[in-house]
């Protein structure tokens, strides 16, 4: 029996094959492959973003494990300690690799950390009329010359002192109104850059932009399950140890 799902899957597969055969002819940028953040790297897009009063209040409550306000695992309130998804662009600051797969109607990012994926829809759709806020948001994209441009909205924002949501590893908060634009391009064969523009009128007085650099890796993604944290007997992994 052929179900709707199997028909759609096989069509997508066929289109993908056609696409891969024509990528060269159309000169679409090839961003495919495994990428990992370059080290040493910064822990935020900009060190001193223009926070609103709302943003500053929440920044003051943050106890990050990086940067000038570094707290220990027993003191910090970063979402990383709970293995919660960090959203974007914060996920990029984790030192774990990810893979980009380009298909004709979407790009897919596969993240080693927690085996999660991110779909960037490129079929001309708009954002949902009724937003469903999620940990990693809703992303649509398009190509501009050598650049993949991604806009992401509907990311679950800062909720409480116990549910911190940061743009980075330094504790800069974001709200449900956050909109991110990423411009991804290959700088050279070994290097990819993602320029990120943050637009969150609740947390920041004006949009600001920063860039992250990634290097090409020649290994395959593995499995990294953050929740193994709950099994760790190391005294610094869990405050109760």
């Amino acid at each position, binding site marked *: 029996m052929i179900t709707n799902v199997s028909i759609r899957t096989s069509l997508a597969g066929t289109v993908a094959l056609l696409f891969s055969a024509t990528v060269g002819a159309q000169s679409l940028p090839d961003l495919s492959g495994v990428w*990992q953040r370059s*080290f*040493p*790297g910064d*822990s935020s897009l900009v060190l001193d973003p223009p926070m609103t009063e709302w943003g500053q209040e929440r920044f003051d409550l943050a106890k990050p*494990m*990086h940067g000038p306000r*570094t*707290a*220990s*695992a*027993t003191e*910090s309130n*970063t979402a*990383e300690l709970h293995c919660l998804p960090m959203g974007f662009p914060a996920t990029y600051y984790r*030192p*774990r*690799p990810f893979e980009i797969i380009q298909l004709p109607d979407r790009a897919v990012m596969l993240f*080693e950390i927690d085996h999660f994926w991110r779909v960037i829809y490129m079929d001309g759709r708009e954002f949902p009329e009724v937003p469903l806020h999620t940990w990693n948001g809703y992303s649509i994209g398009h190509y501009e010359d050598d650049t993949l441009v991604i806009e992401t909205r509907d990311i679950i924002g800062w909720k409480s002192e116990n549910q911190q949501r940061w743009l980075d590893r330094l504790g800069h908060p974001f709200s449900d109104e956050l909109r991110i634009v990423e411009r991804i391009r290959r700088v050279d064969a070994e290097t990819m850059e993602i320029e990120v523009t943050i637009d969150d009128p609740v947390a920041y007085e004006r949009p600001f932009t920063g860039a992250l650099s990634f290097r090409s890796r020649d*290994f395959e993604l*593995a499995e*990294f*399950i*953050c929740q*193994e*944290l709950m*099994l*760790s*007997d*190391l*005294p*610094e*992994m869990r405050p109760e140890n």
Partner: protein
Amino acid sequence: MAVGHGSKTSDIGFLAIVSSLLLSMAVTAHAHHANSAYDRTKTISVTGTVTQWQFINPHVGIWLDVTDEDGNVHNWSGEFQSVQDLYRLFSWNQETFKPGDRVTIIGNPDRRPGVRSMWTEAVVLPDGTRVDVKNNP
């Protein structure tokens, strides 16, 4: 290198990686969250018998029974980077250490009084090979 299934080629790769990592360590000394719990100005070394090897994420751990000068046995732990880093760089896996193995761990001690733990910088394997593991991926 007598680690995992190392080869001549991977030895060269390993040396190159360690060299570049050493150069970057000064900058990245505080880049990792776990480091803040450890006193990076101090380096200690303990030798003992492996009681546990926990090859899990986000950070791998090893535990040793260490006998002090007075004959008292204390259990020490050493924290490492992630599973994938140790696997990719050194071909380490869940079989690398077994209870009873005699090893030395060298690293930065926990800041908290009475907590016998360290951020591991190097390990001397049962066969005497020293592996520098203070890396960033």
